């Protein structure tokens, strides 16, 4: 099982590819608020993470999540498997 830190790292690397170069991204970054991503991009991003860690994030959990750390914690608590 990957650690929260490992999951965070995967999230951050992927998010970097979605925003202009140089944008700071860390555990406390708000995915919608700070990065200005539209809801469709976020949905596709979440689906990509679900594949990577082989879990499904229920919609009510997705709505609650704001920061990168929230997302990493949710993925871990749902039993994220080793990144594939």
């Amino acid at each position, binding site marked *: 099982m990957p650690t929260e830190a490992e999951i965070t790292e995967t999230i951050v690397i992927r998010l970097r590819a979605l925003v202009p170069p140089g944008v700071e991204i860390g555990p406390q970054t708000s995915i919608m608020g700070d990065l200005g991503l*539209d*809801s*469709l991009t976020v*949905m596709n991003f979440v*689906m990509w993470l679900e*594949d990577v860690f*082989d*879990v*499904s*994030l*229920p*919609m*009510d959990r997705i709505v609650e999540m704001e920061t990168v750390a929230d997302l990493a914690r949710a993925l871990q608590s749902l039993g994220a498997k080793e990144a594939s």
Partner: protein
Amino acid sequence: MSILDKFEALRHAHEALQELGADPFAVCFDSVASATEGTVAGRPVLIFGSNNYLGLTCDPEVVARGVSALRAFGSGTTGSRIANGTYLGHRTLETRLAAFFGRRNAMVFTTGYQANLAMMSTLAGRGDHLLVDADSHASIYDGCRLGAAEVIRFRHNDPTDLARRLRRLEGEAGDRLIVVEGIYSMLGDRARLAEIVEIKRAAGACLLVDEAHAFGVLGENGRGAAEEACVEADVDVIVGTFSKSLGGIGGFALSDLPGFDVLRLACRPYMFTASLPPSVAAAALAALERIERTPSLRRTLHANARRFYDGLAAAGFALGGEAGPIVSIRLSDTPTAARFWAALLEAGVYVNLALPPATPTLEPLLRCSVTAAHTTAQIDYAVETAVAVGSHLGAIGERRSIDG
């Protein structure tokens, strides 16, 4: 400071659209001459943006049966289906719908939106799992939010992703309800039902198909996408509406599940709203009978759809989905889409403008729809007009290179 301040961004987006000369949200038909012709701001328009697939809104018999029920039963029921709002017309409509679909039970709702609210929020309860297609209609998403089940989205029309998500649920308690649409309303693509029912069976899940756009349109008898795919026996619940091919308003849910009727006492969107006016129920029944009697309507619809789709495809437009009554022109950006839409209206062709986030991707769409009532001359005029406007705006073929 106002309580409406939170809508500032929405207001700005709307104003930006208006500055481009388009306000699709403010279109008002001030007269309707037929299922395909009306006037907007005094200007005659051909209607290529509706869900009136069989053109039954102005069918003389449908109208006459509505009028006669209006006279016999009055303007409304003033009550819910489980109080004073069930009339003979509602009962008859349920019996006839059940017979049409070959199902044991039918429930009629005031709208299709409410039928979906009811089914999503009641069939799946706390501890159950709803697996919904990511491109589902708002009524499905809203129904999910109204209920207490866990909601999982799967990638649009992707049976492999659905199977993967069901596999992840293995060992967990609770029922699984898969929700798909027969025809998806924005691009007109059809659910991959043959594969989906295989997965459903293997997982021991229930399957609900919203046939809103496919009822009266697909299948030998018009029973929808499940009939077309020969998988009706594997569909546990069908949801549908009278607001599209039947040309009226009202929703329904059908099932063979024993004891389905108990939902009449459990579905809040059934219990806490007034029932359909008897005239509307009577008109819907007349339209259903018309569909049963006149299968040629469906053939005309598909021939018309093909003509329209082929005309636009030949001109090089990037189209969504497959040839069918919903034909969506995919465009690259909102300003082009807004100008395109406004120019079409100016030239007398009304279509629907669909903008993200209401669209499946970030592309805006000109959602066009064809009906059995369109003449070939009307279709050809609409195609020619779209080609002329599209070429002028440089909007033809532009997506090809990007999508590969």
